[in-house]
């Protein structure tokens, strides 16, 4: 458009007016897009500039320091010793268990909603899934507290944390599964039926492979959504100073450590590096899912 405008002199006043309107509109679009992306740029800049000092080998291989160690280091102007290993392992462990719980159930419910789209019961389930998506995460933490902490593990535990995260992941996986399957043309399904393929095999061997990248994207986005959750974990996993892989014991997580560091004036630097780490993981998950979407189309 620009080229056209510069190469030719437009004498028609109406056309000139339209072209200038066009430029004003394009300028507005660019300006507001820039305003939208500026926070994320600022956040990443701040995290890197404040957090890079603490990112070293120890950061990934040592447990969180105690207040005294941190205080000594800060007062002598050194880098705070220790890292966030207990948080990283706890986050990975709890997200893994949450995925094991949420992915099969979510996929099955998504397939059910897709197959029974007009049935009354499916409509009710779909509405409830939508409501579940809107439930505040701390409320889900409370639920997991009463179900698991009070009744199953009799204390704060990784299992309780995973349960809360799994409930958060469910609606995301269910809806993305349903939407992905909806996008597969019915003709592909009919091709299977016309070959005499039984129903369950069409779902397992035709629909799921055809929608694989979409399903994987939904799962990755659900994981990136819960990996930074703090509130429900406070009520369920509590946090721990140790690296823990016992499902029935309290467990740490990166966001829980950030909260701890925030409450300790000696560990301010660790807040930034932990946040940087978490942010990078979430960005990475989003980039991978973007790639998957690009591959699909």
């Amino acid at each position, binding site marked *: 458009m620009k080229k056209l405008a510069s190469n030719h002199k437009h004498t028609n006043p109406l056309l000139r007016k339209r072209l200038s309107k066009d430029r004003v509109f394009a300028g507005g679009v660019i300006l507001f897009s820039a305003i939208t992306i500026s926070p994320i740029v600022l956040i990443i800049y701040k995290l890197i500039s404040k957090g890079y000092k603490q990112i070293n080998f120890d950061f990934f291989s040592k447990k969180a320091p105690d207040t005294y160690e941190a205080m000594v280091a800060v007062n002598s102007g050194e880098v705070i010793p220790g890292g966030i290993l207990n948080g990283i392992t706890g986050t990975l462990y709890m997200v893994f268990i949450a995925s094991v719980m949420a992915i099969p159930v979510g996929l099955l419910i998504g397939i059910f909603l897709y197959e029974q789209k007009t049935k009354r019961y499916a409509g009710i389930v779909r509405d409830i899934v939508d409501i579940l998506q809107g439930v505040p995460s701390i409320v889900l933490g409370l639920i997991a507290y009463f179900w698991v902490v009070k009744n199953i593990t009799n204390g704060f535990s990784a299992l309780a944390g995973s349960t809360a995260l799994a409930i958060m992941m469910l609606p995301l996986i269910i809806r993305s599964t349903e939407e992905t399957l909806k996008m597969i043309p019915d003709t592909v399904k009919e*091709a299977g039926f016309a070959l005499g393929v039984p129903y369950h095999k069409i779902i397992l*061997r035709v629909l799921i492979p055809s929608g694989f990248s979409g399903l994987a994207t939904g799962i990755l986005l659900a994981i990136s959504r819960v990996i930074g959750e703090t509130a429900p974990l406070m009520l369920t996993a509590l946090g721990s100073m140790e690296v823990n892989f016992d499902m029935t014991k309290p467990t740490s997580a990166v966001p829980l450590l950030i909260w701890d560091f925030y409450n300790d004036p000696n560990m301010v630097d660790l807040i930034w590096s932990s946040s940087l780490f978490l942010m990078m993981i979430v960005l990475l998950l989003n980039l991978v899912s973007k790639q998957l979407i690009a591959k699909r189309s």
Partner: protein
Amino acid sequence: MSELIKHIENPVLEIRKLSVAYNKDKSAVTNVSAGIKKNKVTAIMGPSGCGKSTLLRAINRMHDLYPNIEIQGDILLNGEETTHMSTILLRRKIGMVFQRPNPFPTMSIHDNVIAGYKLNGIKLKKSDKNDIVEKSLRDVVLWDEVKDSLTKKGTFLSGGQQQRLCIARALAFKPDVILLDEPTSALDPVATKKVEELLIQLKEHYTILLVTHNMSQAARISDYSMFMYLGELVEYGRTKDMFINPIDNRTEEYLTGKFS
């Protein structure tokens, strides 16, 4: 209905008083009876919405997928009532090709041809697999074009090639009957010509039932023709006779282009 062909000797497929209704008020196919002759191409013609696809899809019971459809009457395949057969076996004996080419998007060309075996969990030796793939692709005159790219995805082919791949997929099971639902309506003229030539060759071994809205296509390749209008089978006869000397007024009007 025309009395020209009321009875066909030893039909592969016999339709008896078939009615299909999508809901209580609206019948899509009304009281259709016809026999389909072995190793011939039979075309079903008619204007849009006359029930030709509905009739075709009743034959391999594709309507079973949609619970609100009501079907009355019988269809016999080699004398056996299709409603008494399992849909899985029935659909192996009656292959189907759709309006738009629909190869399985995740499968290679090779796997698409034997998809019927793969998806049904029928184990084959590797050499048998390759034989079936080669034979089916040769049958649809696609082998020379794709023999070096069998591992590529089926969707990598052009539209006409995809449609022939879909026909090969239907042939791989050696069905008795092949149903084609406007198989060339999404194809360009060159690809259409190839598919038509192919159908003429295929009738040597298979019975072909072809739905088309294209009269000249029916004239070119079919031996028998049905003309349907508003869900009724108006006229059924040898294609030659019907095009030269239609019996029913409505057939004549359709063939001369008074309505379409």
